[in-house]
């Protein structure tokens, strides 16, 4: 009798496999939760390097402590999120820094699992800039649609040529200027600008095609060739 493939198991079963020493099971869990753990950490710090270290330490903690995970208490996603958050805050404190953002989105996103009530998010959002306070309550369908939009943008980012992805990640992810990117990479400034614009065009294409014409008009600059003027 053969064992089921790791990819067909639920999280709790995979954690048991990890506790038994299966690196394949850990890889499947990374594929399921790695992006969310990174997102959770990166929303607390603008330092991508720190966020990546938090991901590594979070999955190391999962490996080392898999046998203590109890699925009747909470989801694996919530557990990983808690570890990631604590590790991020510890790192920031050690460096004398503060979290840069309230993790609003993570409070309502899948990495929190079902452990966080929706009204908590509403209370947090009510303190923000949205006039009239009442925060949107997302249905599961909305969460799915939002997830798909972000996935489409993430896919565009991951699938673009490495040179283009590099410049746009350095610009948006690390807040480097075009000149600073050119200096860091040793590329001519003109090359950096060209690659940045190509990368933006790919992302814009997703915004234009992925969110419908109303919001494409709202969010994405119209190319001259598409204009009437």
């Amino acid at each position: 009798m053969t064992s089921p493939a790791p990819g067909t198991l639920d999280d709790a079963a995979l954690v048991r496999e990890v506790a038994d020493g299966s690196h394949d099971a850990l890889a499947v869990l990374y594929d399921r939760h790695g992006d969310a753990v990174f997102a959770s950490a990166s929303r607390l710090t603008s330092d991508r390097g720190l966020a990546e270290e938090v991901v590594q330490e979070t999955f190391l903690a999962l490996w080392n402590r898999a046998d203590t995970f109890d699925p009747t208490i909470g989801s694996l996603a919530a557990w990983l999120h808690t570890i990631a958050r604590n590790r991020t805050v510890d790192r920031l404190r050690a460096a004398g820094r503060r979290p840069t953002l309230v993790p609003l989105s993570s409070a309502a996103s899948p990495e929190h699992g079902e452990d966080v009530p929706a009204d908590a998010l509403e209370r947090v959002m009510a303190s923000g800039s949205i006039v009239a306070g009442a925060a949107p309550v997302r249905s599961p369908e909305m969460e799915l649609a939002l997830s798909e939009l972000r996935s489409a943008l993430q896919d565009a980012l991951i699938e673009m040529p490495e040179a283009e992805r590099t410049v746009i990640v350095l610009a948006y992810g690390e807040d480097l200027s075009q000149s600073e990117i050119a200096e860091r990479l040793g590329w001519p400034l003109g090359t950096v600008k060209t690659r940045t614009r190509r990368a933006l065009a790919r992302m814009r294409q997703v915004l234009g095609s992925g969110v419908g014409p109303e919001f494409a008009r709202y969010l994405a600059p119209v190319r001259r060739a598409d204009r009437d003027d």
Partner: protein
Amino acid sequence: MDHDEVLEQLELAAVEPGGLDRLTAGDTAEAAAIAGHLAGCPACATDLERLRRSVPILRDVIRTTPSPELRDRTLAFVREHGVARVPQAAPTVSAAPARPAPAGVPQPVANARSSMVMRTMPWVAAIAAAVLISVVATTAIVTTAVDSRLTAQEDSIRALEYVTVSTIAITGEPDVERVALESTAGAASEGTLMFSPSTTELVVVADGLTEPPSAQEYRCWVEVGGERVNVGKMFFADELAYWVGDVPAVASLPAGSTFGVSVADVGGASLDADPVLVGRL
């Protein structure tokens, strides 16, 4: 400076934090040329606003997307530093000593009593989570003005995402109807209303509305049988006013039905004020 040159400068500036403000408010010859072009070119001015709206969303996605290489590095990190486990405790596994659990990693409580409490009284866990989030949120909000500003930006991004995905959902309905909302006063405001008679879901967005006077708010309504039926109060995210929700009245609207947005007293029932935006089915 032509349209393409202006767009290029705007796009490159938008990538840098505060870049658009520096470019459009700077005192360089380039800034003056761009400002001059924008002043006389509504299309490029519109592009500037679109860039301002889309950049925070793109920035958030890019910031929160890990590099593809992180997966392999993480798995290798665990192989190198993780505790040796059966059956992988073979000689091929790194002989590095197991590190103690990192400080701050929460113990997953396996206590039977607390587990039972959580299962039988889920509201205890809910309240605990809510308090935790409130504390975290409050702490971060009061720390610095910068944090507050970032929080406000984050809120706006989430609201824009919410409206966006609502639009995606409703435009996926085969019977979706669209109504263009136009200003009645010749102002620059405009809007779009979308609804599905079968699901009765409705999304309305408006751009260019100024914030309402104190103690007043914008209300969206639909006129049925000569009477205005309240749809809802318009919320603001950044400069976008919106309302999303279920409106049973749209299930069977006759052709020619009118939608509008009017100023109303907060909490008041009257929708009689002249509309600032209006559209006809």
